[in-house]
């Protein structure tokens, strides 16, 4: 069965390593913070200028001057640092963030990503996404494998205007975990109960499938 948003977030969280600085995008990526495995510590970077983002505040802790990049009220964790947008993107652009998790409309077998602009629809802007994909060492893209019409979002070549070129390493969808390398998607894990055939059917880009594709586990 296809993964829920929470299950996708949970699987992403298993990719975290002790000591990682991580930037989580809006949507499913934000949920990853709820599933950080026991025994490891990661520090969350929010690109509006916060390193060490804590949980949401209690009602009486809400402070208009303490928000994250999604403009939600948050808290600062113990040991946090706060700085300007220029400093924040110096960190990002300079490759100091270990992992970035973000959503997308499309990714392709060459690691290109389209996530910000659908022609003929109103363009709201790229925010920090282009900087994040250009700067991060290691990017995980979270998305549904296909759109609501059943059309694949894992493509030979992105059809929408790009956010970044050749920058995505890993995709975690509601159906599968795939690595992108050498011009192809490599199917590494499938969602519990999802068949390899379904993933093949819903992947338009070049897909490499090994003999035995394990089901995901979540712990």
């Amino acid at each position, binding site marked *: 069965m296809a993964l829920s948003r929470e299950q996708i977030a949970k699987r992403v969280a298993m990719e975290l390593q002790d000591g990682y600085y991580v930037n989580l995008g809006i949507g499913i990526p934000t949920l990853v913070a709820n599933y950080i495995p026991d025994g490891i510590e990661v520090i969350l970077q929010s690109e509006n200028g916060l390193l060490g983002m804590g949980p949401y505040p*209690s009602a009486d*802790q809400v402070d208009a001057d303490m928000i994250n990049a999604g403009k939600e009220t948050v808290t600062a964790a113990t040991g946090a640092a*706060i700085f*300007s947008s*220029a400093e924040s993107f110096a960190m990002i652009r300079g490759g100091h963030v270990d992992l970035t998790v973000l959503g997308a409309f499309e990714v392709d077998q060459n690691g290109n990503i389209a996530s910000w602009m659908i022609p003929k629809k109103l363009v*709201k802007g790229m925010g*920090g996404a282009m900087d994040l994909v*250009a*700067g991060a060492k290691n990017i995980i893209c979270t998305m549904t494998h296909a759109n609501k019409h059943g059309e694949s979002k894992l493509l030979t070549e992105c059809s929408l205007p790009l956010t970044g070129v050749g920058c995505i390493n890993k995709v975690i969808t509601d159906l599968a975990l795939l690595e992108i390398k050498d011009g192809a998607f490599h199917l590494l894990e499938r969602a519990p109960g999802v068949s390899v055939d379904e993933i093949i059917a819903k992947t338009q880009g070049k897909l490499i499938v090994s003999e035995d594709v394990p089901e995901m586990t979540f712990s």
Partner: protein
Amino acid sequence: MAGFDKVVTSYNEAMAGLEDGMTVIAGGFGLCGIPEGLIAQIKHQGTRGLTVVSNNCGVDGFGLGVLLEDKQISKMVASYVGENALFEQQLLNGELEVELTPQGTLAEKMRAGGAGIPAFYTATGVGTPVADGKETRNINGRDYLLEPSITGDFAIVKAWKADRYGNCIYRHTAMNFNPMAATAGKITVLEVEEIVEPGELEPSQIHTPGIYIDRVIKGEFEKRIEKVTTKQENQ
């Protein structure tokens, strides 16, 4: 001490010299850390044909969004302009031009403008619509875009505390774009919550040294919150 007493007591003085067609750089991220009174003054003055450079354009009826009501902005340079129906409408009508700029590139363009760096290279935006019309150059095996810096006729900035020299500190994440905006205005106006005596701010803890600041005014802030999220609701 006249030379360094930058404190003004009226918003008319604070924004004196702002003229139609000028470029205004504004600090803030969404509605966080925005110079509310200075924006209200621009609305009050009715200055038109403005190019506004800011990460966002506020929301309907608050923040920079209020400058849309009388069509005072002719061009917006920003990274994200959602949450604003009037913006959308003026954009579709062709009454408003928008130049979308990646957030980190926008921050660095302001910093570069203030720091006398006319242009810099960045990998951000290579191979995307942002690269259209820009020089792409391969440096050490990777492609980069040449991005020109930004300066403004005015910069409007919101800080927490300042002294009369304009030395200031920002509060929490209300810092955001304010420090860069402060450096990039020919005239930089600072609106603060509190004016303190010189020496109250520890020299090495000052976020923006007064040399960048031309005028300081004490404001009253509503500090509207875009998305109140709390533990109870979300966890």
